[in-house]
């Protein structure tokens, strides 16, 4: 309970934790699925292509809802984040497999990608001058507050996902100490499936919201 990521082996002197190994496995599964789904694309989709289109169109609708006519542009970034976090949250339902998102390194890494993307797309849309000018609005006295507000975004994004997944794991661990049989199963479904899907959705929504706010 709550041991955190364990070091499994060393690769060129760099320690590799179980989080990283599970992340690689998820990437491999998603990659194979993507190849399988896009092997022979048809006008009337079926099977894997159908599932992929269903997911991508749902994400596209989310982006179009906040940034009209720019959905296709942000789809690769946002859909990748949504797919990876969704899989990483769901994978915990397999016993003994740790959630990669219950490790702060994973969540902070993804949050920093969103942070960099937010500012990149903001500067690209508005230009450097206008973008920097927004930090001293409505007055220059609010400059520190605006900077802290921007820095708080990736931190809250990362800690929200990490706290939810790690907290769920700790609660499951405590319950499993008292009642090792039957009772943890519905709780596992709750924490890994329900909370996991909701948190992946929220992370995706917030990433879209941050980018759309930065682009004005």
């Amino acid at each position, binding site marked *: 309970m709550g041991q955190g990521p364990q070091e499994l082996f060393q690769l060129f002197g760099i320690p590799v934790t179980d989080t990283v190994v599970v992340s690689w496995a998820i990437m491999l599964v998603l990659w194979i699925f993507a190849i399988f789904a896009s092997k022979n694309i048809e006008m009337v989709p079926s099977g894997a292509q159908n599932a992929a289109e269903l997911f991508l169109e749902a994400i596209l609708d*989310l982006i179009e809802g906040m940034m009209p006519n720019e959905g296709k542009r942000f789809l690769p970034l946002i859909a990748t984040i949504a797919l990876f976090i969704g899989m990483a949250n769901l994978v915990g339902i397999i016993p003994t497999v740790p959630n990669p998102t219950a490790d702060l390194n994973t969540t902070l890494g993804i949050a920093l990608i969103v942070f960099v993307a937010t500012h990149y797309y903001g500067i690209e849309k508005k230009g450097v001058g206008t973008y920097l000018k927004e930090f001293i609005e409505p007055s220059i006295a609010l400059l520190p507050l605006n900077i802290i507000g921007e820095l708080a975004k990736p931190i*809250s994004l990362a*800690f929200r996902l*990490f706290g939810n997944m790690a907290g769920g794991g700790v609660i499951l661990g405590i319950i499993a100490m008292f009642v090792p049989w039957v009772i943890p199963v519905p709780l596992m479904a709750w924490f890994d499936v329900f909370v996991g899907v909701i948190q992946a959705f*929220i992370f995706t929504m917030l990433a879209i*919201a941050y980018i759309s706010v930065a682009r004005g």
Partner: protein
Amino acid sequence: MALDANTVISAASALGAGIAMIAGIGSGIGQGYAAGKATEAVARQPEAQGDITRTMLLGQAVAESTGIYALVIALVLVFANPFLG
């Protein structure tokens, strides 16, 4: 049992973790309020259910932040105590 520094720090950390989780009250009230208002909105405009649910979840996620910060502090105090020598 001798009362050395680490015992006192452990006991205080356990208490601190519990006290930190009082912050859960705030996010609980906030999320409940948002859910209640969303229910009212859906009752008034059932056709806008998708948008309302999406907005509610987004607002609840932001309201949850403070509770999650408290949880992280409690987890650090219990599992990775920085004060223990």
